Every structure is written in C-alpha cells, then in structure tokens.
C-alpha cells in the first residue's frame, strides 16, 4: 500500500513540486498518474522510491514510513519494488541476461536460482532469443521489456513505472502497458506515470491527475474515460 498524507516537497531553489498531497493506493491496484510536464509526477515517484524526502507530511510505502527510514535500509526497501524508467536504465556493458540477473545478485541469490529465474523472466517478456544481446543491440521496446523483466525478477509486490512508454512506438507502448496489466492480474500493485491520455483511455484503471503539485482529480476506470 502507498500512502501520502499532507505531503509537501519544496526544492532548495524554491520550486514547490508537491503541495499538501493526500493519496492512497491499495494493494493490487493499477493506477495511472497523469499530468503535464512539471506537474510533480516525477517528484511523486522520487518520494515513493525514497530518492527524495518530503519537507512535511508522511509518505508510507509497503507499510514503511520513508521519511524516517535510515539510509542503510534504502537498498533493502528498493529490492521490494520493481522500477521501470522511460530511458530503460539498463547497464550498457551487460547483456539482457546479466541486466536481469543483476537485480537478483544484489539480493545475494544463488547462481543456480539465477540460472533458473532469469531465462523464465526473459521468456515471459518475449525475449528468450535475445538473452545474450547488449542493450545497444535491442530496440527501444525490447530494452523496455528487459527493464520490465528486471523489475519483475525479484517478485515485487509493487511496480513503479515512470513513463515506461515515453521512448517507444505507440504500438509497442500498448504492448508494454498490456504486459503490466497482465502482471497486475497476478496481484502486483502497479503505479504508472504517463502523459499519454490515449493510452490511459484504452485501459480501465484508476487515474490520478496532478497539476502544479496538487491532486486535482482521482477517478476510477470507467469514470476516467467519461471525463
């Protein structure tokens, strides 16, 4: 579960990125967070990942109060979340296999287990034939699927996707969100930030709209499409 209570985030240059935000995302939900550039979506994600801390208010993810979390506990916390970025963030000199395996290695998983899990995940995202390819040898859509496999490999209860379709073709975008949709059906909470309204409309999920650092609309699936 994700909970924001009266959260305000102000950067040192004076920009108020989030202003008194209240929101709650329950386990197993699929939520789109939409808004224009500079609305505060990225800050929302940074707070969820404990990359930033709020100036005031409480941010809780998976029951942990991130404002009070000690620095040394952050790595373990992040392992419980799958993260997907717009620019994929794959390690350039590692193969698709190694990029996915890396997420397991940081949790000290045995080699035997890695050899079993990684091909399974890459197969799940349809890339079993490209395990030995490096990121530069893959298309944008394929790179994003590797990133998705990496996010999934530790069996997280929550996946945070920050504009995962921003760098790929519209057709592939649908495939990626559809894949996330399938993962959600397995009980994984999905929080996806996007500014592609067309894509949002194709899926019947909750939509939180942010503008100038405030939640201006929070609608359920069908309701969102009617707006």
């Amino acid at each position, binding site marked *: 579960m994700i909970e924001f209570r009266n959260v305000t985030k102000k950067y040192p240059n004076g920009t108020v990125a989030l202003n008194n935000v209240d929101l709650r995302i329950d386990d197993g939900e699929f939520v789109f967070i939409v808004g224009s550039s500079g609305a505060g979506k990225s800050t929302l994600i940074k707070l969820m990942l404990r990359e930033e801390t709020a100036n005031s208010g409480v941010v809780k993810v998976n029951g942990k109060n991130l404002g009070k979390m000690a620095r040394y506990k952050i790595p373990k916390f*992040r392992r419980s979340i799958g*993260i997907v970025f717009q620019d994929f*963030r794959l390690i350039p000199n590692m193969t698709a296999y190694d990029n996915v395996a*890396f997420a397991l*290695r940081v949790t*000290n998983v045995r080699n035997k287990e890695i050899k079993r899990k990684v091909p399974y995940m890459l197969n799940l995202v349809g890339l079993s034939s490209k395990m030995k390819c490096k990121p530069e040898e893959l298309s944008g859509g394929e790179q994003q699927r590797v990133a998705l496999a990496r996010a999934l490999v530790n069996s997280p209860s929550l996946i945070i996707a920050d504009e995962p379709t921003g760098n790929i073709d519209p057709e592939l975008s649908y495939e990626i969100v559809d894949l996330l949709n399938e993962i959600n059906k397995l009980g994984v909470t999905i929080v996806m930030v996007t500014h592609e309204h067309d894509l949002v409309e194709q899926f019947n999920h909750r939509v939180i709209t942010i503008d100038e650092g405030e939640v201006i609309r929070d609608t359920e699936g069908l309701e969102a499409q009617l707006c």
Partner: protein
Amino acid sequence: MLNSFFYLVGQGFKNLWNNRLMSIASVGVLTSCMLLIGAALLLSVNISSVVDALEDQSEAIVYLEDNLDSDEREEVRDGIVATGKVATIEFISKHDALLSMMESMGDDGILFDAYDDNNNLPDSYRVTFHDVSDLEITVAHITALPGVYSVSALTEVAEVITGIKRMVYIGGAIIIGLLVAVSLMIIGNTIKITVFSRRREVNIMKYVGATNGFIRLPFVVEGISLGIISGAISYGIIYFAYDYLVKWVSSQNATWFSQIISDLVPFAEVSQYLLIGFIGGGAFIGLFGCVAFIGKHLKV
C-alpha cells in the same frame, strides 16, 4: 555472500577490460607519476650516498703535547671518542710522522734522516668522523682536552658537506612531497573522470537496490588492479633504465665518471623499497581514489 563476492571481484576485472581506454589512461598517468617520484628518489639517494662518502673521507689530526705517557695518551683518545662522532681513530707516533714526512718528500726526505734522534714532530691521532655536522664545535671540544696541543681539521669543507647534505634531505623531501601531491591530484582527477563516466551505471545499481558496498567492490578491485599494474610497470622501467645508466656510465673512460659509478647506489639496495612503495602506493592510491570519488554518486 561468497557467491556475490566472487561475482563482484570478477566484475571488477571485467570492467578493467570493458573500460580499457580509461584503464590505459589511468595506468599511463599513474606510471608517469611513479616514474617521476622514483627518479627523484634515486637521485636523492645517490647524492646523499656521494655526500656520505665525502663525509667519511674528512679527517682531523689531533696533535698531542710533548712527553705524554701512554696513560695520558689513552685519556686523550677516550676524550676524543667520547664526542660520539668518531668513525676511526689511529695513533701516529712522532717517529711514524717523521717517516711519513720523509716518504712524502721523496729523494729529499733523506735530509731529515739526522732528525730522528732529535725529532720535534708531535705525537698525534688521525681521526675520521661519521658525522661532520657541527665539526667546529667537536674540534673546539677536542682542543680543550688536557694533553691536546692543537687540532687541524678542514672545518669549512665539513660545513659545505653538511650544507649539501641538509639541502639534499630538505630539497629531496620537498621535491618528492610536491611530486606526490601533484600525482595525487592528477590521479584523483583521472579516477574522478572514470567514476563520472560510469555514474549512470552506479545510479542504476542504486535503483535496483544494490548496497554501497556492492557497488564499490568492483571499483575497488579495478582501482587496486590499476595501481598494482602501474606500480609493476614503473618498477620495470626504473629497473631497466637504472641498469642501463649504470652500464653506460661504467663504459665511459673519463675518470670522473668512474668516480661517480663507484659511488652509485646499487639498484639491489633500493629495489625492495621501490617495489613495495610502487605497488603498495599504487594499490593504496587506486583504492583511496575509488572509495573517495565514488561516494558522491552513491547518494541516490
């Protein structure tokens, strides 16, 4: 745990190859710095060895008063040794002094043959010193000893030697210190660039949940390896260059060259210190550089 450790060490070596251009640049910079430091060290050691040899050759003649018996002569000897700066001390009787003088005059020396029974030359001690600093004070102290008539010593030469020695020590330390400081700055910047070029990689690792130690270890392996490789290359170059220098100098006919070569410190005498210094120093710089400069990129 061991599983991860071996993986990370392996990653460190893999990264050396994957980032080979940066690795070569780092080794180049490290090696250049170590060569400069090594050359400065060898120069300083050699100058100091030449000065030490000159120091060993400086001597004083302590002339004794007439008619001292053997006990009184021994007392003077003990007094001279008590200064704590004496390397050797040799008694020269008035008879030996006359013979030596006659010998130095060659054929004309026979003119002094008749003086053997009426020898006015004094008994003396020939003293060499292992430390000629403050020789003037030492000479004054010996002159004041009961039974000493006078002391003849080249105190001005001793002062020059002491001055050179001090200059070599202080100058050498300053030059080497500056070189080490400059090297650290250059190496620091090289490591900074290396880490900066891979900040994205570090950033990704943090998002996936890697601990700082997990991210640092391959960098540490890389840093230490680069340091050791540079140390070994520097040692090899210095070894062959010094050996070549010694051989080249000894092949020259000029006598002053022969003089220098006889005083050049053999490489074997300093080799182990250089090897430990280069490899240990290189490994330390590599390790320190990586740990220090990567920290900034870990705050994600």
